[in-house]
Structure formats: C-alpha cells, structure tokens
C-alpha cells in the first residue's frame, strides 16, 4: 500500500499535470518489492515509476535516503517535487526538506492548498498550526502536502491495468554514480544503539470492586484535582 500521506502528493501532482502538461514520475527508494507501490502510484495517475534499490542503500537514515533520492533528481531535474507529509508510522518528516537542501532548491512544508502554479512559480497556502500563510516560490522547488489538500481519486479499472504495464525503472547505486560513503548504513550519521520495551516505572494502584465502588473511588480521586 502506498503511504496514505503520499496518495495526496500523487493526486496533487496529477492535477498539476492536467493543468500544465508534463510528466508525473513516482520516485521511491526501497527493497525490490517496493515496485508494487510505484505501480499503484501509476494506477492513480503517475506516468511512470523510478525505484532506487540496491543492498548498498539499506540501513539508510534520512540523510542517506535524501542523498540517494537527490542523485536521481539531479539527472532528471524535475521542476516540482511533491512529498507526503510523513510516513504512517510516525516518521520524521525530514526527507522533504533534506532532499530540497541536497538539490539546493527552496521547499515549503505543510501545504494545504496549491493556489496557483505556472511553469515559473508556485503559490501555496501553508497550514502553520497557528493559522495560514500564502507563500510564493520560484521553480524548481519541493513541497510537502497535508491530507486536506485534495480528495485522491480511486484507481479506475483502466488505471489499474496501466499500473500493471507502466514503466518502472530500477536504479542501483552504481547506476546513479553514488558516492558509496554517503548512501545506506555507511552514509548514515545516526545509529540505533539500543531498542527496548518501555519499563514499568511504578505499579499503578488497582481500583477494584463492583462498578459503584469503582465509580466512588474515581470520584474521590477526581475531586482532589478539581
């Protein structure tokens, strides 16, 4: 399944293409199986997919991932890069700004509306959490989009068929002339040194009895705070 946040980016890219022409490429980095996600993106309107896949990319943190993505972008020179806000599992939302920085192009995060886009510049509304900003930015640029931005279309039957047949190109590290000290585990400054299950800090005090007794005890505890 495509990361739900990314479906909004795909939809917005397809809408911009419908207005201005051009080509929508779905780009990802991952294990060979990730090809399925790119075919899914093509069934939703992307023209083709590009997958960066190589054992040398494995274990990448956001810096090494964004570096690898930037290598392909440097060759292809997209005028606009759209990213989902973040991965589903509470990811870092770092890939977008880091990719923009590697490419030396401006970026705008948390875009909730594309107000206008031409071949030269894009005007967007950004949700800052405290309100909204209207921002204008010359292209090439990168934006990360929120889920309020659109209602993604469902893949149509011809779309699904197109997704099966669509061109998904796979690039390896050497195909991108990657600097091997900057990709994968060896290119990742951060390291996981330990994973652990959070420990019980202290035992919670059990409140037992019939429902009325429980409610009575809870009422007393609540009243201490009120």
């Amino acid at each position, binding site marked *: 399944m495509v990361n739900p946040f990314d479906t909004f980016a795909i939809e917005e890219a397809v809408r911009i293409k419908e207005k201005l022409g051009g080509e929508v490429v779905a780009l990802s980095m991952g294990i060979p199986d990730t090809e399925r996600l790119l075919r899914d993106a093509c069934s939703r309107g992307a023209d083709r997919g590009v997958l960066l896949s190589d054992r040398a990319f494995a274990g990448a943190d956001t810096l090494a991932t964004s570096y690898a993505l930037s290598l392909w972008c440097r060759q292809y020179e997209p005028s606009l890069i759209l990213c989902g806000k973040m991965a589903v599992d509470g990811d870092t939302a770092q890939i977008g700004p*880091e990719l923009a920085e590697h490419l030396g192009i401006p970026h705008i995060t948390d875009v909730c509306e594309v107000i206008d886009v031409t071949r030269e510049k894009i005007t967007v509304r950004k949700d800052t959490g405290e*309100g909204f900003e209207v*921002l204008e930015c010359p292209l090439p640029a990168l934006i990360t989009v929120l889920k309020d931005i659109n209602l993604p279309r469902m893949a149509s039957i011809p779309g699904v068929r197109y997704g099966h047949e669509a061109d998904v190109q796979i690039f390896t590290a050497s195909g991108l002339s990657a600097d091997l000290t900057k990709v994968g585990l060896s290119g990742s400054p951060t390291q996981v040194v330990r994973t652990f299950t959070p420990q019980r800090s202290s035992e919670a005090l059990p409140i037992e009895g019939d429902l009325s007794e429980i409610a009575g005890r809870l009422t007393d*505890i609540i009243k201490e705070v009120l």
Partner: protein
Amino acid sequence: MAAYIRVDREKCVGCGMCAGTCAQNAITIENAVAVIDQNACVLCRICLDSCPLSALSLVTEEKKENDLSQHSGIWVFAESRSGAPIDVALELIGKARELADRRGTDVTALIFGSDAHNHVLSLIAGGADRVFVGTDKMFDDLLDLPYAETICHLIEEHKPEAVLFGATPFGRSLAPRVAARLGCGLTADCTVLDIDRENGLLLQTRPAFGGNLMATITCPGRRPQMATVRPGIFAMPEPDPSRRGEMTEIDFMPRESAVRLISRTAAEARESISDARIIVSAGRGIGSQKNMKLIYELAGLLGASVGVSRPLVDLGWADHSHQIGQTGLSVAPDLLITFGISGAVQHLAGIGGAKKIIAVNTDPEAPIFSAAHYKVVADARDVLRELIAKLK
C-alpha cells in the same frame, strides 16, 4: 560490500524472537535457524537486541571517525514570535542546561526577530550562558532559508557539539535543512535526552518505527549532533533572575529568501488539548462510535477536554486535532482519564507529561497501565455510565 545482518548458526536455536520483531517479515525460521531474506531486510537493526543468545550481528565496514575534539557546547534554537521565545524554546534550554552541567560545558541559545534583544534575559534566566541574537527584520517572516543559512554559518564558526530544535511545524522544516547542509544526523521527536559525560555522545531516545519499542539513537561520527523535541515533553525551567550570561549580536547577513511571504492569517483560537488541565480520552476499547457521546458527557461534567488515540481518528470517530501521541499532540494535564486505550508506545510518548493518570481497560496486561497511576480493569462503557451517574 554492502552491510548485512549475520546469523551465527552455532548460537541460534530458532526461538523466533527476532522474527517477531521484524516489521518487514524478513526473518523466517528454517530447520531451527533464523534465515534473513536479504531482499526484504532494510537493516533497521531492531532484531539485534531481541536475540536472547546474541546470535545476530551487523556486519559492516568500519567507518572512518572524524576529529570531533574541536566541538563543544550545547545549543538551542529558540524559536520566537514577535521576538519572544515560545514555550518549547525554554523547555529545551532547561534540558540543555541539565545536559551541559553533566558534561561540564555551556549552553548557547539562538534567537531571531526584530524585537528579540528584549527577550534575551528570559533565555539566560532559563539556563543559557550565551545568547546569539539576530535582529534583522528579515527573520520576522519565519522563512526557512535565511534561518538555515545563518544557523549553519554560526555552527561552522563556533562548532557546538549538539543543537536542539523544537519539533514545531517551523522547527521540523528548518532543522532537516540545517542537518542536510552540514551533513549531520538528525533525530526527530526525541522523548528522552541524555549525554555521555566522557565523550559527549547525545543519547536520543524516541519511539522506534513500528512495533511497541523505544530506540536510543546516537550520532558517533559527526558534529553537531542534532535533535528535535516536541513541545510539552520537557518541563519548563524555573527562571533564575540572578543568572549571568552574555549576549552577542549576529553580524552575518543571509541572502534574501527565494520563498516569499504574501500574507499571513491567524486561525481562530482552536481549542487545543495541549493546554488542557483535565483530559478524558478514548481508544478502540470504547467499542462503538456512539460511546463517544459518553466521553463528551463526562468531559462536560468535569470541564475537561477530549482526547483520542490514533485508531479513532483513522476510523473517523474524532478529528486529528484531538489525537494524542507521536503523530498527534503531546499533552500535560493535571488529570488524564483514559477509556479503552491500550497504550502503544506511540501513544505513551504523548502522555509523559500528565501528572495523574487513571486508566480504564479490560486487559489487565495493557501497556497503558505501566504509565498510569490508577488501574481499573473493567469495561470502559460500564465505568463511563456509572461515573457519569455518580458525578451528576
């Protein structure tokens, strides 16, 4: 040669603990030995700590270590509005002070905005030894590029060993830009920060991707070490007006931003659960959407705000603005009453600041009880009804 996870066939007994932790399902047990599908493994390394027999190891080339000895001091980016630092900036200065005292180093705050010099004293009282102030009007628009350029310039000149950012929408946009420019690591949304007194290694703990696990992350080979922290995770420091510190005006002038601010509108004050004193929260265990009514009724009786766990937002039972946890809001109420929330680490990451937690859940082993002060093993709906009746 690319790195990979190696299974020591002498040690492995095929217990399957590692397979259980793998989010990619890349590990299978064949003939009582763990086998790793190298095409599915993404080298997340979560399996390494799961093996009771230490049969798993990471095989990789040795990294060349850079000279890190020139770097010292802990910095905090103090995000501000109209020159005044926002709460998370002070929370981070308080934490930076703690870390710096352990390490025997000093704390520097960076603050920007045309009125920023009026607020330097609050940063020093909170724990900063030195404050860099950028007062150019350009900073008032809160655009990433001039900030990133200025901060990178200061970091390269003064070489701090760690830099902390608030994980606000602006901080989450700015920090990765700075990290990528400097080629540094960045750990998002840390919930615990500690420092190694000897080598200055910042121990950054956050919920791991997927799974009910916490991960401690370090950045051994590059400086500065960079981390973001959500608002409300660390306590506000008690201001000490007698503290002394120095202030330096920044004379660096960044280029004008390519992104232009056309207009800015403040949203109508949204009810935010981040500031609520009492919160009643609900999870999957409340059973059905109609029981949200009971949650709102109880909240009404207590003058409380309503929070939810992520599944309820995914189900459409509540709006995202009510979601507590890693992908929602962090809360720090005096009282939190949870109904039918099991307590995934991503959820627990958002309630660390709550002073008193009453948890109601049918499963006595639910992880929420590890964070709670009072434990009620019962059906959420029954307790809600009874409690509402009692309070009325």
